[in-house]
């Protein structure tokens, strides 16, 4: 498969503290890459570097390169272009304070889609793809904030899909959800595999095993190991990975 994202020698500092050390890895097109690791292992910083949300923190410094479809996202693309192609779903669902319809239509509208018919189409397709359509189709005009936690997270996924990204980043998307909502979000991820490249940062090792094609293990800002999910979970090459998976630390 083609490499969608290639990260080379990526290091990130926050106000002088190094949170990511000389990391190199690649993400293949249409795969789900699970990223696991204990707290402070640099998972979220890694994710936020991929769509340049780190730019918002003025104390952050980045070296090395991240390439998307061969283009350097920090030097050859502007931040908006990167974020439109590499979208992020956050740990806590953050519906914007507007109706369900407007939440989904928000991105496309800002990117210039004006026709009502087209917007309705995008909203319906996005909600269907995120497995939320059946639950909300009769109340699209009610507030996105009145949905349950799991529904809100799927709303956020739908909102992300509406801008037609190529890559979707998830930052512990199920940390606040119950098991049934989690299962629904995971179903949505598997369903989206045919069309998107997805990176899932999670504290839940089992979740990485359930949905990840490949899994990367981060520890204290370093990439310890990356490999096929089946191999990494059953026969980890690195002692530290094994220790983490068996619960000896972290």
């Amino acid at each position: 498969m083609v490499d969608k994202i290639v990260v080379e020698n990526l290091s990130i500092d926050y106000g002088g503290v190094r949170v990511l050390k000389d990391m190199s890895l690649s993400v293949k097109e249409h795969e789900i890459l699970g990223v696991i690791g204990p707290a402070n292992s640099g998972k979220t910083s890694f994710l936020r570097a991929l769509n340049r949300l780190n730019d918002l923190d003025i104390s952050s410094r980045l070296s090395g390169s991240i390439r998307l479809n061969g283009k350097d996202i920090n030097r050859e693309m502007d931040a908006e272009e990167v974020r439109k192609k590499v979208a992020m779903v956050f740990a806590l669902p953050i519906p914007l304070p507007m109706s369900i319809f407007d939440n989904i239509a928000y991105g496309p509208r800002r990117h210039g889609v004006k026709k009502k018919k087209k917007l309705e189409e995008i909203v319906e397709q996005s909600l269907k793809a995120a497995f939320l359509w059946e639950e909300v189709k009769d109340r699209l005009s009610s507030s996105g904030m009145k949905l349950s936690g799991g529904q809100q997270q799927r709303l956020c996924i739908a909102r992300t899909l509406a801008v037609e990204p190529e890559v979707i980043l998830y930052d512990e998307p199920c940390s606040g959800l119950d098991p049934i909502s989690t299962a629904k979000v995971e179903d949505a991820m598997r369903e989206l595999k045919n069309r998107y490249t997805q990176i899932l940062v999670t504290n839940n090792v089992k979740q990485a095993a359930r949905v990840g094609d490949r899994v990367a293990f981060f520890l204290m800002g370093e990439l310890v190991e990356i490999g096929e999910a089946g191999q990494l979970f059953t026969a980890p090459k690195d002692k530290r990975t094994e220790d983490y998976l068996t619960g000896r630390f972290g």
Partner: protein
Amino acid sequence: MKFSSQTKQKIAFMLLGIASTIVIVPVIVIFTILIQKGLPAINWQFLTAMPRMGMRAGGIFPAIMGTLYLVSGTIVVALPLGVLAAIYLVEYARRNFLTRMIEVAIVNLAGVPSVVYGLFGMGLFVIYLKMGVSIVAGALTLAIMILPVIITSAKEALQSVPRSFREASLALGVSKWQTIRYVVLPNALPGILTGTILGISRAAGETAPILFTVAAFYLPRLPKSIFDQCMALPYHLYVLSTQVPNVSPKIQYGTALVLVGMVFLLNLVAVIVRSHIRSRKQW
């Protein structure tokens, strides 16, 4: 003498209760006196007629209209300027020497006595910029006076919009300005309106800033343009109370009541608009 902790608590609550009740007293007294002595003067003619006989009779129509003009002019200038400044300071400015200077300047501007604004307005707008004693000069002076109030409240309103909303929007590839325009500003609007309300009240009630810049002592007609002088309620009240002999107290109190009533009405409009916006707010 020793009290049990229960008794101490009771005494503390009582003192706190008394302290907050005392705040209501002056308000009630002022309103009672104003209404008691001023209400008999108020009728349709008082509100809509020109003053006559050296302001000892007739109405206060030009002063009411003058104050309305001044308040509108002030808001038209101060609101956009203040909100744009607040957006810059909150969303764009980096923390450096310049922004700290701007913030210090805003705080100091808020502490300048209003008569100094009056003299400043006369020096800059009336004399140097040759606007003459006019509604423009007065409104600009009042606008500078209420800018700190508007900027400060707008800043607080913008800061109270959760950072996560901004990130959610930015993460969709939406530009920073569009994020501010479509997510941050709509949610900051109620707070910005609160500042506007305070600004309106100050602009409508101050005498000193308009003294040298716009207010006419006696002008029994409406202003012809924004470069004309006009009468204004606070100054008119001052004139009636101290400069003109033999004015019946009825007219004085009536004028005061109209001024207070007008500020109240202007505030009411802003409060209604604000609660309307808040009711649509979904978080």
